[in-house]
């Protein structure tokens, strides 16, 4: 399965990758990923390629049109990566947009206009809103989206392995918050 994780530098995309990595290894599966660091992270776009399989796979990169799942923490960013999407792609996108100098407004319908032709199904979820309400911060929205993907059985990983991975990646206090966020994924 080819998963593209995207968002804005500082939103924790690399941490989400770590969670997925541990969960995959817990289940005895194989993964290969690719991430970018440095200048691209400073509030710019962040893209993590993450490929899961039962046996060894090769390329760390997903080809254009080759994503099975795109998880995005930002509506605009999700529309920027449609090159990786096709008719078989599921989008899980947080219903938020963080404005930047060249673009002040970007709506749900702006995103849908671009992504709809290249998707099997699109979920636009209120992860940041609900995390803000229930956990006092939208920083957990990525974990909530992973929770959604897991409970909807969109990613081939069990709840138990995902919780184990969260515990592995986060220190005790943050683990509790992230576990709650993960469970909120059920209600999204």
């Amino acid at each position, binding site marked *: 399965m080819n998963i593209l994780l995207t968002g*804005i*530098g*500082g939103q924790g995309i690399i941490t989400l*990758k*770590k969670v997925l*990595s*541990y969960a*995959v*290894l817990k289940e005895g599966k*194989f*993964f*290969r*990923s*690719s*991430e*970018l*660091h*440095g*200048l*691209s*992270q*400073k*509030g*710019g*776009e962040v893209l993590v390629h*993450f490929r899961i399989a039962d046996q060894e*796979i*090769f*390329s*760390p*990169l997903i*080809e*254009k*049109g080759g994503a099975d799942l795109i998880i995005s923490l930002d509506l*605009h*960013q999700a*529309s*920027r990566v*449609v*090159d990786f999407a096709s008719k078989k792609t599921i989008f899980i996108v947080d219903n938020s947009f963080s404005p*930047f*100098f*060249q*673009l002040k407004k*970007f709506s749900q319908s*702006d995103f849908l206009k*671009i992504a709809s*032709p*290249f998707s099997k199904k699109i979920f636009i979820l209120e992860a940041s809103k609900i995390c803000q309400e229930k956990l006092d911060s939208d920083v957990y929205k990525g974990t909530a989206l992973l929770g959604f993907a897991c409970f909807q059985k969109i990613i081939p990983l069990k709840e138990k392995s995902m919780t184990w991975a969260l515990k*592995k*990646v*986060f*220190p005790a206090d943050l683990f509790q918050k992230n576990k709650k966020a993960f469970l909120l994924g059920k209600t999204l």
Partner: protein
Amino acid sequence: MKKIFKKGEILPLIGNEGIVVGALEASVQSVFTYPGTPASEIGNLFYKIKENYGIYMEYSTNEIVALESGAGTAFAGLKTLVAMKHFGANVALDALIPLAHTKPRGGMVIVIADDPSCHSSAQSEQDSRILWQNLYLPILEPSTPGEAKEFTKIAFTLSETFQKPVIIRTTTRVSHQGGPVKIGQIKIQKKKGVFKKEKERFDTMPPFVLKQKADLISLKEKIEKYLEKIGLNKISPGKIKEIGAITSGVSHLYLLESLKKFNISLPILKIDSFYPLPSKKIINFLRKKKKIIVAEEIIDLIEREVKILSKEVNPQVKILGKDIVGLVGEMNTEKTSLLLTEALKLKYQRTPKRKIKLPVKRTPRFCPGCPYWSIFNALAKEIKKEKVVFTGDIGCYMIGYFPPFEMQDTSLCMGSSLGLAHGIDKSTKQKVIAFIGDSTFFHASLPNIINIVNNQSNPLIIIFDNQITAMTGRQPHPGTPLKYKTHDGKKEIKIEKILTALGIENLTILDPIKENQLLREKIREFLKEDKLKVVICRHPCRYVNALEKAKLRY
């Protein structure tokens, strides 16, 4: 102290972490680096674990300092690793070439990370393998995090066996590639080195250096045999006999992906050692082949060697490589598929370009609360940017290139803003402002500042001092206050003391957030006068503690 890695565990690691674990398994004793993407995580991880494993590790002032210091510990018999990004290798090159002629007593491994497609390197695509022609040092190219670990171990053994430094060359997609890695036995022996005098081993004076060069070149065949014996540069068989592929680094993975996609089986020679190339193996591989695909990153270096070797054994063979995929940008599966389908005369539909208008790209910006916002705000308020030349440099302040400020007219390399400002000031009537960072100040600025003072030009030099090497992950540098560097550095060196000692008179130190009016005043003064002026804008990076505070979790 608590050991981080447990034998037998399978962990998700990126290539750079694989290199660190490989070095630990090889019992590395000292590590030197200057941060630079895509190599930074090597230093970051050593920085966090050095006390756990009793390793000497430092962030050196720059890459040549790191290499020379590493040569020192290796001369004294310690197992040493030096890591840098590709441009760092340029900085270190002055020491690297003579070092190749010496014989370190301890194993010495030098990691150089290239960045095809310039994902995080503003200046240029560079293929560091090209250095081989002056170095004649083994260059190993891993493809995966697991190989990054194994090749680092092999590199140490190779270095100890042949008493030569060994280079590990990675690229971004290896350094930042994630995958499962099995941890082996880690046993670090803490010991003091001894420098035993032996001029012919460590000194490169002429005419003796020519004998050293002859010895160095003569190692090629022995190393080739050694690598053959330990099973590097493997050929995997394939069903098609008349077409073969020669691959290296991450390109090997892309080709495997393409073969799977088209359900084709070809014999593949995977080049693990770029130098020495397994030339006998290549010659045998070329026999009876009609076509050869070569898949490698950046420059067609293996391809050229293959072409030369083919002249002897099989001049008719057609070699497909960079003439098909081009010399610009990183490799990927689309490119290896193109090579494959071209060689097999198959139809390949590249994903068609879609006629959709994507919204504008989000460009990097200063973090919220970044002190550099205030510096550029002051500049934007006081200056019409058309009237002043802004020479940029390497660091977070490069973000000033992007909207809304767009104040960066040049960028070459670390420290270059000062040389360019000097030259432009000398040759024009224009006002020049040079930007330089704090870490960059120590890394590469002193000769330029001395030159500006000595040969008298009059730019405004703005030192963007956020007290940490921010862009690469907040690593400490010589000017970082002690409170921010618990693991490293025993002294804080003040930039202003250096500048005063150099005779800089117009020197102001200010906080760009709290004293923004004063900064604006200094800019106005500069526009009126024709005098060299230096302003140190000092305010800690908002995340100054990020690396120090980050808890390792594996």
